[in-house]
């Protein structure tokens, strides 16, 4: 297992180098980072060349790439450089944004996965039952809903709920914009109230979509497994239906779900862009939109690399979990 992990990590290195070159090419193609600045007012040639020198754009793209790559590996991810954006440390900003996104994604993904697994498995075990039809209908309904519509509907529902809660003297619980502002101040009850009020809408909107995905994969995968020979054998041996499903079928039937979960989680670490935008959480999604809009090359470049690394890591994690779930899969 250790050898496998080491080999995968080594394979990932050239993959990440290629990814970094591609992202650098894309970032460079965003155009002249000083285009807007030069048009704001008349500038002397000396000013312009000095500004290019300041941001390092007087060097060739390969030089810039090597400089950035060296810095990225050693922890110097550079700063924002476009006039008007200030000088912001890229690494600390991505770290901060990743922290914000993590809070959202972990809650949402865990809930969505557990719910999706349970509903999918039950749907497979009770195929063509009322529950199965209802779960299938709900999943397809959620699939067909654009995330921003789900988010906006949830917001207005939250506002109405708040109005009702206020009318009965319970105050306004649900927050539609941003994470809790005051940190962990106050008693446990206050913290729970504050955090649940801030998290419930963005988490629900993510869960609604992700749950639909996981439940469908779980159902399909478990149905395949339930019809497999070894499951039939287990049944023939007289094992209880619950033991057959939970102990034998579900474990193998989890593999596709784990794949989707790992890939999704990796992608979501790159930012639940729509959810973050609609609910005012300034995480990875908001960060990349902002960085691209402001044409900040190092922020965009480092963000893409972090996202690539996270996706590679989660893919590796998924492979390792396969081996645990199905010993037939050999990692060697």
């Amino acid at each position, binding site marked *: 297992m250790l050898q496998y992990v080491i080999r995968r990590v080594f394979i990932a290195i050239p993959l990440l180098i290629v990814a970094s070159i591609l992202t650098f090419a894309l970032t460079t193609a965003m155009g002249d980072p000083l285009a807007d600045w030069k048009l704001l007012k008349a500038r002397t040639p000396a000013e312009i060349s000095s500004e290019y020198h300041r941001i390092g754009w007087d060097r060739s793209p390969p030089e810039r790439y090597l400089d950035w790559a060296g810095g990225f590996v050693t922890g110097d991810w550079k700063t924002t450089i476009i006039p008007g*954006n200030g*000088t912001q440390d890229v690494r600390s900003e991505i770290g901060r944004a990743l922290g914000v996104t993590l809070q959202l994604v972990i809650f949402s993904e865990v809930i969505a996965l557990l719910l999706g697994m349970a509903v999918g498995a039950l749907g497979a075990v009770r195929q063509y039952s009322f529950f199965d039809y209802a779960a299938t209908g709900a999943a397809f309904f959620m699939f067909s809903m654009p995330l921003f519509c789900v988010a*906006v509907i949830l917001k207005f529902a939250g506002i109405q709920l708040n109005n009702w809660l206020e009318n009965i003297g319970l105050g306004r619980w649900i927050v539609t*914009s941003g994470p809790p502002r005051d940190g962990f101040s106050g008693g446990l009850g206050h913290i729970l109230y504050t955090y649940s009020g801030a998290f419930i809408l963005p988490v629900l909107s993510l869960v609604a979509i992700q749950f639909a995905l996981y439940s469908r994969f779980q159902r399909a995968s478990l149905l395949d497994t339930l019809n497999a020979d070894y499951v039939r054998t287990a049944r023939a041996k007289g094992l209880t239906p619950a033991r057959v499903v939970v102990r034998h079928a579900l474990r193998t039937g989890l593999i596709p779900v784990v794949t989707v979960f790992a890939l999704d989680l990796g992608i979501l670490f790159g930012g639940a*862009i729509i959810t973050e935008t609609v609910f005012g959480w300034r995480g990875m999604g908001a960060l990349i939109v902002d960085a*691209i809009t402001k044409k900040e090359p190092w922020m965009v470049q480092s963000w893409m690399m972090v996202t690539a690394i996270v996706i590679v890591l989660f893919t590796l994690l998924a492979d390792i979990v396969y081996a645990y779930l199905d010993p037939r899969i050999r990692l060697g």
Partner: protein
Amino acid sequence: MRGSGTWMGSPASTAVRALALAAVAALSLTACGGSGGGSGGGSGSGDVNQGQNLKPGAIGALDQPFTRPKVPDIGEVRVAMDEGFQDYNNNTGAANSVANNYLLALTTPSPYFEDSDFSLKIDKDYMESVTVKSTAPQVIEFKWRPDAVWSDGAPVGCKDMWLAYLANANAVIKTGVNPFDTQGSGFDQISKLECSPDGKTVTVTFAAPFADWRGMWSMVAQGGNQLLPAHVLEQKAGIPDITKVGLADSPELRKAAAFYTKGWNDFSADVDLSAGPYLIQSSTRNQQAVLVRNPKWWGNPGGPSKIDTQAVTDSQAAVQALLNKETPVIGPQADPTVAEQVRAGGDFEVFARGGQTYEHLDFNMARPIFRDHPELRNAVAACINRQDIVDKLVKGIDPKIKPLGAFTINPNESGYVDHYPGIGTGDAAKAKKLLEDAGWKLGADGVYAKGGQRASFTIGHKLVDRRAQTVQLMQASCKPAGIAIGDAGQESFNDQQLPASDFDAALFAWVGSPIKSSLIQNYISKNRGGVANYNNYSNPQVDDLLTKTNTELDYQKRLALFNQVEDLMAKDMHSIPLFQLIDFSASDRAYAPVSYLLPSGGVLWNAFAWTKQP
């Protein structure tokens, strides 16, 4: 990004950038989706609607005063803004952003205050007086109040003004790049800056008259004019007395520049002091910043005891936060849908008023179609329907908005005259007559032509929905007049085609200002400094008059000069003013007076005066 660039709409976007955005699935969020203010919301000055003193040029004359009102404590107020606070020193080119000004307007000392009618008033909370001592040479005396201090107790005065002078007029600028990375106007025309022994009286002598001197050292002008606590720089950079550092290049000057450009970045409570009614307590860059009352503030304390500002970039999200009563004051990007939602929400007040930014259609005067055919320019001006454009595209935000009648003076400012009455009324018959009188013949294709020149041109613009719709409306109203208009909208228009004058006609917006000199470069001939004169307009009379406005110290005469310029430009019809973009804010009805003003603070510009109904 509201008003942070020279023109509105997010600047420079390439197709690649759009692709990159698409690659991260930045999908459009717009598909699912009380009566207007307009009085300026009041500022507590008691003279909101009075115009600027029209004779400040007279020796000893004073502009009108402004003092912050006495208001009750209304506790904490949460505010959502379209962009968050980033850097304390907003003077440097690297940091300069209108979003910083939102907060800095409440923390920074400033001789002048921009009131809701865009007039500049002497801020009597800071100044004992600002006096024009002489006009030839121009000498201005600034007398700071003795009790005006920074939040660490150090006096506000000469040192702070000297630092700004040094940053904007040091000798290095003449030979290379300004080490202070700042470009305030007028400082290079100062011949002498003298301080009284107590540092509270500063006398400034100009080598050449500078009409916009009120913007200097004031928060009414962006970029280079923000006063910073010079004593902090002295301590941190190891400079005993900043006023002893001359304009010539020296190690001391370089040390000062090094701290100036790096020491006040982002936010740090120990060096980022306040001398306003509020001080910044904390800041999470571009996300959230908290203002609390400045305990050292000597004037009337502001209404809110704490102002918790949050950056909410999505206008819909800001409105929903308002409707959910979690944020009682919002200053989002103006949008008809947003305005409608708030107005329909019930207990909310909308402030919507034409701001300093104005949309206009420019004819490229270097292209024969417009250079050689003034009748075509006038015919287009006749056939487009400005009122229809305003009704369909802007009235949803501000029901009182009207077609614009001047470029250099805002309809809300004193001295405004409509120079385009009866222009742009969708009068196809008049347009046809103008063309036919000049010898144009209607072709079989329904388009006029003369000497091989068809009355057909394209309008370039950045790809913004509003602009695409404006072009469609113009196309529709000019087609019956035998004028064919093509849409040449491009994402890169503002970045590439516009500055290169690569267009027949251009649709874009300029950001105006009470500091009028900033507009001159848009209209003066290129060979006389018109670096932003993209449509190649040139009229020697206009050039002379505009040059004169820069040195005319009598404000009334200056306004008259601007109106003469407007008259000439209207006759030349090189550009057609369309409408002002709308300054917009919304608030819970319990809070008042909430409005919006740029460049001085956005929705927070008068937060000190906010009150709350029980």
